[in-house]
Each structure stands twice: as C-alpha cells, then as structure tokens.
C-alpha cells in the first residue's frame, strides 16, 4: 500500500541538528563543528537532498549501502540523506577501482536507486549523482551550504513531481518464408526459382518495413500525446539490448515529468496508447522515478 498509511513518528521532538534515524550513533551526538571520535575509516555517501519531511521510509528498499536505513542530516531547511560507508571502498583510489567493476557498480547503483525510490514515497527528493561522497558530517553540511541556491530552486521546481519512463521496442518478425537453402528449390536454374526467391525476400522486407512503420507511428503518438500530459519531456539515448537484457530493438526511450496527482491519468494514457494487438511493437512503462532526468531543467532558463 502507500507509505501514507505507515506514517508515524518514531522520535517525536526530533532535534533538527541531530539525525532523525539513528540517534544512538555516537558521531551524531557530536557538535556540528569538528568531529572528534569520528572513525577515520568512515565516509559519508549522500544519496539525495530533500526538504524536511515526515513519515518513515518503507522498510523494504529503505536500506542504504551499509545495510541500515539511511540517516537524515538536517542543515537549515535542507536534509541530506546519507549512509556511512567504509573509506576502504569509497575513498578516491578504491572507489575508482570499484567503479571499473560492473558488478560492484550495478549493485551500488541499485542500492542508490532503492533509497531514492523509498524517498519518493514520502517526499520529492532531489537525487544526486552516484558516488557523491563527503569525509564527514561537516563535509555534508558544507555541501548543502555551497549548493543551497541550486538545491532550493530545483526542489521548488520539482516538488510534487515524478518521472515516468516510456520505452518502445520493436520485434522484427523472422522471415515467414523458408530461406532459400531450405526452400524446395527444384533446381537453381528452374524457371521461376530466382523470381520466387526474390519475391520471398521482398515480402519479408515489406513485413519488416510495415512493422517499423507501425512502431514509428506508435512512438510518434506516444511522444505527442504524453508530452501534453507532462510538464517536460526528455529523450534518453536508445538502450542496447546487451546491457538492458531486453530482446527487441529499443526505438524510443523517453522520460516524462508528471505531477504526482496526475500520475494515475498519465499511466492510463500510456495504457490507452499501447497497441494491444501488435506483437511486433511493445511499450514499456517504468516509474515512478525521482525526477533524475529533470534536475537540470530550468537551470539556465529564467523560470
């Protein structure tokens, strides 16, 4: 169900300068300036910046890189969502090495994403890029301080909005006619053999072309109509099946910024625009995502 049902306040009267989630952590009791006793071998991984929010993260998915629920570090009117991470893995050199490891990268990215997704159930987080890391809590505060203007304007702009991903795949039908080798060609130079081969080829090409045309039409309609229900649209580069593990060819990979309140209608719209009877064109919806693809919109525009 929705996280709204689970809203409760595990710690009433939370002190704004301490961490909402883990008051027992020794370092969170330290004065904000300086960090005596902070283990040298721990760094701070920052997932997102949010406005202060109420409610708790859903249990599943709400666990950070250390396996614990992330901490909320309040600073002024902003909150950094952080996890302590071992310096042995996240300091510059080891991090660089780790990022070369696709499995490590994938796991870290998934955890990052799970935390962000959990946050979207209770607030409108501003997701930071993978591997944003500070030395300690005061580093995190400095980060909030130095980026404050950007964070505030982006949070205002994106408040109450989510991102939906819409992808279209085509599946080229295999040649319906037997290939020339299997074809019961009476003899290569029998009259009509060459012609029938060419006709088969032509028929196959036409099938492929009409499938491509149909996919093209679906993409166009989706893009046109969904853009109207969305505040912004971004086209991502098309995905390669080797990474996505998806069969078929990706012909549209779009992201739409949609108000939460309009999400249900948006999803309905996608359903309505999805051709139900066409095996060769598949539409895939993902989301709701935090508005990753829209964190920089309007940064250079005057709104």
């Amino acid at each position, binding site marked *: 169900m929705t996280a709204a049902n689970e809203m409760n306040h595990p710690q009433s009267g939370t002190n704004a300068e301490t961490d909402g989630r883990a008051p027992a952590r020794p370092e969170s009791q330290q004065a904000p300036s300086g960090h005596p006793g902070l283990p040298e071998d721990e760094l701070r991984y920052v997932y997102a910046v949010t406005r202060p*929010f109420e409610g708790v993260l859903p249990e599943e998915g709400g666990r950070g890189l250390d396996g614990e629920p992330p901490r909320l570090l309040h600073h002024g009117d902003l909150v950094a969502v952080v996890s302590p991470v071992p310096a042995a893995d*996240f300091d510059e050199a080891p991090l660089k090495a780790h990022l*070369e490891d696709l499995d490590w990268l994938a796991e870290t*990215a998934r955890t990052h994403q799970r935390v962000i997704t959990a946050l979207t159930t209770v607030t409108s987080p501003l997701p930071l890029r993978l591997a944003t*890391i500070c030395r300690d809590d005061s580093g995190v505060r400095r980060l909030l301080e130095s*980026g404050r203007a950007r964070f505030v304007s982006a949070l205002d702009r994106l408040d109450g909005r989510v991102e939906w991903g819409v992808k279209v795949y085509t599946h080229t039908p295999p040649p319906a006619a037997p290939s020339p080798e299997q074809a019961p060609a009476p003899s290569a130079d029998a009259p009509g053999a060459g012609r029938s081969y060419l006709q088969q080829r032509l028929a196959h090409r036409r099938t492929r072309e009409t499938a491509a045309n149909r996919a093209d039409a679906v993409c166009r309609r989706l893009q046109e109509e969904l853009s109207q229900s969305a505040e912004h649209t971004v086209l991502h*580069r098309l995905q390669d099946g080797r990474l*996505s593990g998806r069969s078929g060819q990706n012909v549209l990979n779009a992201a739409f910024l949609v108000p939460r309140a309009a999400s249900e209608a948006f999803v309905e719209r996608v359903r309505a625009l999805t051709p139900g009877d066409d095996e060769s064109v598949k539409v895939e919806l993902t*989301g709701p995502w935090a508005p990753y693809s829209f964190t920089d919109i309007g940064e250079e525009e005057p709104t």
Partner: protein
Amino acid sequence: MTTASRMPDPYGSGGGANLADILERVLDKGVVIAGDIKINLLDIELLTIKLRLIVASVDKAKEMGIDWWEDDPSLSSGARRREITEENERLKRRIADLEADSAGSTERELESAPDGNTEKA
C-alpha cells in the same frame, strides 16, 4: 502534501526497470555536486568498454575512437551512410572531371572575349 497518496503502484521496481534504466539515471543524470571525494565519472576507465559503448553516448565513444559499429549495418545506419558517401565521392570526382573539361573551354572563351570582369569598383 508530498505524501504518496493516490500514486499508482510502482512499475518496474519489481524487475521491469533494467540495469540500463537505472544506470542511465543514477550514473548519467541527477544533481552533480562536488563532495569531498572528487571522482569524475567520465574519467573512469571502465565504465568498461561495455559501458562506454552502451551507456556513454555515441559521440563520446567516437571521441574515444570507438566506432566499430559504424561498419556493421545491423547495428547502425552508418554503413549504409558510408555507401552513400562513397557514391557521393564518385559523383564528385566525376563532376570535377567534367568541370575540368569545360573549364578549359570556358577559359578559352574568356580569353577571346573583349573584356573579362576586370572592372572592379
């Protein structure tokens, strides 16, 4: 006000969101702000050749000299474009030849004309 009332159930969190979906957002989007640990994700050696080809943009890959797919018609239209380029080259050479031929005669015509275009303001 920012609670999750009336949100449809998440799509994709149960598996529909593939690794590429996640990486293209977590790695490529989101706010970039310098923490204390400075890592430029674009400098990472890997993101393995695989990632470079797949997640890094085609332009970036080309900058790095990775362009093998260009020759593979099943992967890109580049090979088809190349055919057209070659044909264009052939045609250009042909036109150049023709122009060279006619240029000779034009020059002769100009020489015999009383005044070329020597007048200049």
